[in-house]
């Protein structure tokens, strides 16, 4: 039971972690605001679904589009002027971005949890002595599906190829006639979509509340354990973190899942510094 629920959540963490990887690969920036992009995406979905009363599919698509726009907007407004600045200032900017996003959300929607909306119909199924809910099954499936789609996009499309090129080095790609800025912009947009979907799926099970942003905290170790350069690694890392979270909180209790994920992260760093699927850069400085 713990294993199953771990995998379910892990799929979503993997999806969010994919957002980290998308941005990191393109620009070597770790986006600390990912959890808050997730929060904003989930609340936007809530706005379309509950406040405007749109049908589920329309609300989902609108929220995804909004997430894409939010991601692109963030890149345009805050990260682009920083191109060429030290990495550390880019990372701190994403940290402050998380403050701004959280503040915006609580200014518009308040700090209390919002009224619950069901994203998918909830029915429980018995499967070999275990009780599963259709909701979590669909959520898990959707998360894995979207993650798979993003990975395929990365691997097989022109833009995906360009993105991988940007990850290799900006100058070469620029000289091949690919706009680095546009690619960076698109990768932030895609990260926004990944965060939004993750947020909607989590909001459906956990409720739409500010605490959703905590998932960003779990997705960071997921992305790192998998290796920051590897999309597949992010999904696997997400599953691993989800598993360990549910097992540890199941046996230890007391919300020990998040610290456990970070303990694993630090242990990974000690023994496999670039994660399990990451690019090993040998640099002895």
């Amino acid at each position, binding site marked *: 039971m713990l294993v199953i629920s771990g995998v379910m959540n892990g799929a979503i963490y993997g999806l969010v972690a994919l957002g980290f990887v998308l941005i990191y690969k393109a620009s070597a920036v770790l986006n600390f605001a990912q959890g808050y992009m997730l929060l904003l995406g989930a609340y936007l979905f809530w706005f379309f679904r509950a406040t405007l009363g749109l049908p589920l599919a329309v609300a989902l698509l609108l929220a995804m589009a909004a997430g894409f726009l939010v991601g692109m907007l963030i890149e345009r407004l805050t990260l682009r002027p920083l191109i060429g*600045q030290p990495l550390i200032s880019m990372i*701190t900017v994403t940290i*402050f971005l998380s403050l*701004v996003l959280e503040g915006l959300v609580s*200014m518009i929607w308040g700090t209390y949890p919002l009224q619950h909306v069901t994203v998918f119909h909830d029915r429980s199924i018995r499967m070999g002595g275990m009780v599963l809910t259709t909701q979590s099954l669909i959520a898990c499936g959707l998360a894995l599906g979207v993650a798979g789609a993003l990975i395929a996009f990365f691997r097989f499309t022109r833009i995906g190829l360009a993105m991988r090129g940007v990850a290799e080095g900006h100058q070469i790609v620029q000289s091949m006639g690919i706009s680095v800025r546009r690619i960076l912009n698109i990768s932030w947009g895609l990260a926004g979509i990944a965060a939004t979907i993750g947020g909607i799926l989590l909001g459906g099970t956990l409720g739409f509340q500010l605490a959703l942003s905590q998932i960003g*905290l779990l997705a960071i170790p997921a992305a790192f354990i998998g290796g920051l350069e590897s999309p597949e690694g992010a999904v696997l890392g997400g599953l691993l973190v989800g598993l360990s979270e549910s097992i540890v909180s199941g046996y230890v209790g007391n*919300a020990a899942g998040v610290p456990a994920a970070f303990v694993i992260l630090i242990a990974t*760093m000690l023994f496999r510094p670039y994660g399990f699927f990451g690019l090993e850069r040998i640099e002895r400085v």
Partner: protein
Amino acid sequence: MARAPFYPPSGVYADTYAKDIRILKTRKQRFLAVAGLVLLFAVPLVPGINSPYHLRLLIGAGITVIACLGLNILTGYCGQLNVGQSAFVMVGAFTSGMLNAFLGWPFWASVLPGGLAAAGIGVLFGIPSVRLKGLYLALTTLGAQIILTWIALYGITVTAAGFAVNPARLGGIAFDTPQKFYYVAMVFTAAMTFFARNLMRSRLGRAFIAIRDNDRAAEGMGIDIFRYKLLAFAICTFYAGVAGALLVHYMMWAQLESFTLQDSIWYLAMIIVGGLGSIEGTVFGVVFITVLKELVLVVGPMAQTRLPFLPIGAASGLLLVIIGSIAILFGVLEPRGMAHRWSLIKAFYRLWPFGY
């Protein structure tokens, strides 16, 4: 020389090393420094600004300056990002608080153990990351924030509930009111600031800057990067621990709620706004953000009552948005922070009326 110059006039050079390395080079600078210190310590006696409210703000700012100085040494001088500074403040606070509350150690004896405990735990978390470049320290410090807070909440029963701490005493005086504790806080703040300023122009500080600017070149110059990064981290967390020790003895109560991830982010915002790699910038940033925070805390609830369509909690959201955007603006438009503006003003003063 008609008037006493603030800067050494051009053409006049120091003829001994001792003269050259002085922080305060001219008589006027020395006079201003002493006057500043006197003013700082006279604040509780000046009517109008010596209400407990103002003094509390100043004490809070002073303690925050200590924590931020540490952070600036690590992040600004040595170039390693620390997003868990408040967790180390917590370690210092609880160590010093527990020594005082349960073993009866006086405040003065418990400050150093508080700082050392924080530095010890800091080094523990620093080891896996300092061997790697880039953002890895940011991650372990984030991990430290989460893991240490969790341990304090679930692992140790005393720290989860919070406990009372005795006020600092010196002879027959108990520093239990803002008026009295103000002096303790300012002595520590001034001393730690001076120490940081001195440290950063020593061999150690130059090594930190070399690592920040180009780690390969630094290694080539014979700087042991692993050791110096760890040392920077130890100094940073030591400052955090001292700040924590001061904090619990000032509040006379140790509780977990004062040490959240958000506090760590506040510290970062302060040093970014003030100026990375600048001691006076740290002070500017802390004062600026503290004042801004107070203003928003006054304006926010007013806006909330005037504009009833805003949801509950909008005021706290406003605070986050304002501080976050200011920090981003500084990061994008003025990466060197207020300290840079300050040095421009100083240069203007020095060159006036013949700029260029």
